[in-house]
C-alpha cells in the first residue's frame, strides 16, 4: 500500500516539477487535457447525443473501470464506444430514463487535476466530488478520484483509460448499499435450492 502511495506521490512530484523523463507536454497540451476532463463532468451528468458525446471523450478502444486503490487498474466496466455510450446512459436505443440509472441525481465535480507526461502521452489523477448522493441535493461525497491515461489523436487528446479510484466505496453513501445488496444477492445464489 505504501508503495502504491509512494508511486502516486512520485508521479505528482514529477508533474509539479515538470520533469518526466523523455516526454514533455506543452502548455496547450495541459490545457487540452484539462478541457477534456472538464467536458467529462458535463457529459456523464447529462446524457447527450445518446451518450456518444461521453464515449467520444475516449479513444475508440478506450476503457472505463473502477478500482479501490490508486495505481490499481481494478475492473473494467466498459470497453469501446458502444459500451461507453451505454455507461453514460445512452447507446443505440437513445438515452434511457435517468431515474433507472445508478447515478440518478448525482452531479460530478472534478478538481485538483495532476497531469504527468508519459512516453505514450500523459497520465492524470484528479479528485471526484459527487453532489446529491443519497437523494439529498446538498449531500456531497468525496469519491476518491480518477486515474487516467491520455493519448493525443488526430482529433485531439482523448482518454485511453479512466479508472474511478474509490478507496472507501464499501462505505459509500451512493455505492455502499448497492454493493451490500449485490453481495447479499450473490450469497443467495450460492445457497443450495430447497
Amino acid at each position: 500500500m505504501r508503495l502504491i502511495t509512494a508511486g502516486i506521490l512520485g508521479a505528482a512530484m514529477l508533474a509539479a516539477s515538470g520533469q518526466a523523463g523523455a516526454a514533455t507536454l506543452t502548455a496547450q497540451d495541459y490545457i487540452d487535457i484539462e478541457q477534456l476532463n472538464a467536458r467529462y463532468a458535463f457529459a456523464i451528468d447529462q446524457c447527450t447525443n445518446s451518450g456518444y458525446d461521453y464515449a467520444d471523450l475516449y479513444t475508440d478502444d478506450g476503457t472505463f473501470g473502477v478500482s479501490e486503490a490508486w495505481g490499481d487498474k481494478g475492473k473494467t466496466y466498459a470497453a469501446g464506444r458502444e459500451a461507453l455510450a451505454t455507461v453514460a446512459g445512452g447507446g443505440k436505443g437513445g438515452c434511457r430514463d435517468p431515474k433507472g440509472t445508478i447515478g440518478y441525481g448525482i452531479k460530478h465535480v472534478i478538481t485538483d487535476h495532476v497531469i504527468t507526461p508519459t512516453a505514450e502521452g500523459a497520465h492524470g489523477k484528479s479528485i471526484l466530488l459527487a453532489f446529491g448522493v443519497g437523494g439529498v441535493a446538498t449531500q456531497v461525497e468525496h469519491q476518491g478520484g480518477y486515474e487516467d491515461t491520455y493519448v493525443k489523436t488526430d482529433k485531439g487528446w482523448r482518454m485511453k483509460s479512466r479508472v474511478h479510484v474509490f478507496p472507501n466505496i464499501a462505505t459509500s453513501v451512493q455505492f455502499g448499499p448497492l454493493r451490500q445488496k449485490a453481495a447479499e444477492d450473490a450469497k443467495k445464489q450460492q445457497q443450495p435450492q430447497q
Partner: protein
Amino acid sequence: MRRALLLAALAFPLAPLAVQPALTPEDFVAIKQLNAAYVFAIDNCSDGGYPYADLYVDDGTFGVSQVWGDPGSVWAAGREALAKAGGGDGKGVCRDPKSMPGYGIHHITADLVITPTATGASGRSVLFTSGVEGVPTRMRHDGGYEDSYVKTAKGWRFKTRVHVWPDIPERLKNYKPAQ
C-alpha cells in the same frame, strides 16, 4: 510633419515603462500542477512526509493566518518540519493517520489565482475539506491558501504557503502543531 511627430510619440511613450514581471503559459500550468500535487501529498503521507516537503523550497514555510494578506504564524519551516507537517514522524516513516488532527479529511482546492511578482509568483486559492467531523458527506469551506512561489532548478516550488483560516480559534481549540 504632424504625422512624423505622432509616430515618434507612439514609438517613445512619455511615461517610463515599468518592468513588469511576467509568467509564461508554461509557468501558469506548472504552478497549477504544483497546487494539485499538494492535495494528493497532504492527504496521502508517504516516505515520511518528504514528498510533501519537497513541494517547497528547502527553506520553505507553512503557516496559518486568520486574515488574507497577513502572514500569520509559521508552523513549519524547512524540509524536516514540513515533512512532519505532511504526516511524517521525523524518522522517515509516516505517523498513524488516526493520530493526526486531520484524520479522515480530504483537501480540495479551487479558484487558484496566480499573479506574477518580482521574485516569482503569488497565489491564492479556496480550500474545501470533506469528511469533516467524521461525516463523509460533510464539507466545509475552510478559507484558502495564500502562497509565494519561486522557480528553482527543479521547477516551481512553494516558498511559503499560508492557510488563511478565519475561524481557526474555534477549529483548533485542542490542536498543537508538530514541533
